[in-house]
């Protein structure tokens, strides 16, 4: 087995037991990136030199017994997350030359624990997409089948983890951007509760929905990374003060007695493939045979979630993206007066999907339309949230498919904007309610493509979600 193929837990043990060095491990990941990036395109920037320097320092720390939790572990970060001294483009040309002078809080926490930064993962520009085809640095291909998309928006992160180009990755999820690519690539991806992890240093998309979370090879790895990332941050006023549980220890809590809800609306969505349905139902049957209480439940406002989502997101997007104007940082195109500087810098620096969202958002927030769109969406959001509040009085967690299908073909859906938006139906309700949801592998299709299932829990109950996911993962 090559070192890059190790899980986080295995790599941590190997380093600790001096079976190999951090330099060996980092070199192994870098070699894999070099071999595969021309085809898969999971990385926009690879920090070969600094990664090796960081790995050498890690080995010194081991020698001096000053090693910390993740000393010498090579990881990758979505390019929409700021990394100190390492170019962070958000997959947009307007930030092609942007080098942040600071680390996002979650990245700083992981680097403080000794993790080695390998590079920055390709994604849909600023997270706008579900196929990673809206990147200005080219699409990411699925490592399991190169003719398929890796999913989006965190497609590069999912592909890098699945293809063993890194040990784990950090990404961002607004309405499925961690979970859908995790499902398409056959790995584990967690969307934590809104407010659990700091977003300071994450390029904002829709501030009332954005969260940052890990993408890992196993649930055990997920618990370890989450434990290090989570917690209040004075630089992000939306982080909650709740104590961070020891997720890794709590993985071994008893799962028996958990009441599992199966939301009927999630099994009735248009386009749900039989294979996906069958695989997820198999898992449900296994749990039933193990004595878990399985209960069909209803989330009646599910069908309105996509409409709510695609009002809230472009509206908040259009406001957030106003900061990218070619004035203080990023690429400036000077062409006449100030208006032209803004308009031309943004024309050249944003892909079409970003412009579309800015236009939809500007329209939805404009005088005369605000009540009909943004306010209405925020009201229906209340009802969607209440769906979850109510259902979690009846059951402890929900289990459903992550996405209606397996990974689709590169180019297959790119021209059908509405179809692409609608396919987010199983992912956006939980995001709107701000509850945690994990996607994990549920087997493969006949053609060998991964199928994902998601476990959704009540707000701030990551440990319960992880607990059940680990139980399923190990069986």
């Amino acid at each position, binding site marked *: 087995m090559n070192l890059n193929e190790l899980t986080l837990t295995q790599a941590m043990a190997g380093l600790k037991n001096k079976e190999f060095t951090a330099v060996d491990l980092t070199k192994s990941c870098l070699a894999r990136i070099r071999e595969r990036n021309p085809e898969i395109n999971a990385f926009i920037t690879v920090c070969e030199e600094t990664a090796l320097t960081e790995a050498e320092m890690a080995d010194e720390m081991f020698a001096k017994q000053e090693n910390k939790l993740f000393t010498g572990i090579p990881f990758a970060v979505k390019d929409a997350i700021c990394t100190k001294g390492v170019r962070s483009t958000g997959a947009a040309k307007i930030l092609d030359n942007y080098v942040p002078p600071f680390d996002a809080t979650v990245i700083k926490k992981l680097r403080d624990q000794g993790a080695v930064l390998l590079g920055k993962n390709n994604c849909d520009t600023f997270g706008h997409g579900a196929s990673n085809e809206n990147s200005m640095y080219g699409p990411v291909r699925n490592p399991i089948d190169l003719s398929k998309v890796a999913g989006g928006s965190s497609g590069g992160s999912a592909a890098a983890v699945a293809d063993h180009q890194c040990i784990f990755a950090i990404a961002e999820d607004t309405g499925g951007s961690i979970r859908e690519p995790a499902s398409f690539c056959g790995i584990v991806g967690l969307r934590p509760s809104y407010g659990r992890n700091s977003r300071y240093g994450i390029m904002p998309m829709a501030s009332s929905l954005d969260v940052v979370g890990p993408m890992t090879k196993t649930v055990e790895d997920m618990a370890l990374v989450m434990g290090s990332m989570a917690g209040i941050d004075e630089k992000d006023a939306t982080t909650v003060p709740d104590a961070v549980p020891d997720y890794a220890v709590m993985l071994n809590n008893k799962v028996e007695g958990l009441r599992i809800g199966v939301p009927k609306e999630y099994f009735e969505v248009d386009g749900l493939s039989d294979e996906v349905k069958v695989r997820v139902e198999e898992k449900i049957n296994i749990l039933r045979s193990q004595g878990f209480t399985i209960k069909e439940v209803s989330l009646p406002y599910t069908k309105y979630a996509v409409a709510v989502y695609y009002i809230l997101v472009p509206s908040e997007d259009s406001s957030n993206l106003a900061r990218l104007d070619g004035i203080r940082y990023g690429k400036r195109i000077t062409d006449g007066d100030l208006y032209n500087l803004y308009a031309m810098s943004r024309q050249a620096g944003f892909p079409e999907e970003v412009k579309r969202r800015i236009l939809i958002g500007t*329209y939805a927030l404009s005088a005369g339309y605000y009540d009909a769109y943004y306010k209405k969406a925020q009201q229906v959001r209340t009802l969607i949230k209440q769906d979850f509040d109510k259902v979690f009085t009846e059951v402890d967690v929900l289990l459903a498919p992550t996405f209606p299908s397996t990974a689709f073909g590169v180019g297959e859906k790119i021209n059908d904007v509405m179809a692409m938006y609608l396919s987010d139906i199983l992912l956006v309700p939980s995001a709107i309610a701000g509850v945690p949801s994990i996607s994990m592998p549920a087997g493969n299709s006949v053609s060998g493509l991964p199928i994902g299932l998601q476990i959704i829990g009540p707000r701030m109950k990551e440990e319960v979600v992880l607990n059940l996911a680990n139980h399923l993962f190990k069986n």
Partner: protein
Amino acid sequence: MITKEDVQKIARLARVEITPEEEGRMVETISQVLGYMDILREVDTSQVKITSQVTGLHDIVREDIPIKSEITKELREQMPEVYAEELVVPGVFNDK
């Protein structure tokens, strides 16, 4: 539902130039998306309060204390145009 003129107007308001090819696609796709939003009209929200965020946190404030930035040099390095250590911007009031 949305016209070429609407698209041009909001693009100008949003300070984003779009190409003529993009313009056609924007009219078509934005009309589709806005048309789909009509589904929300089915929902009676006359008695429903808005949810703008779900944490329940409110009035998160801190003292407004000036601190000396330690990264001014790095910030300046990110500026597109610098003169005498200051950011250069086009005049605001000499717009054509």
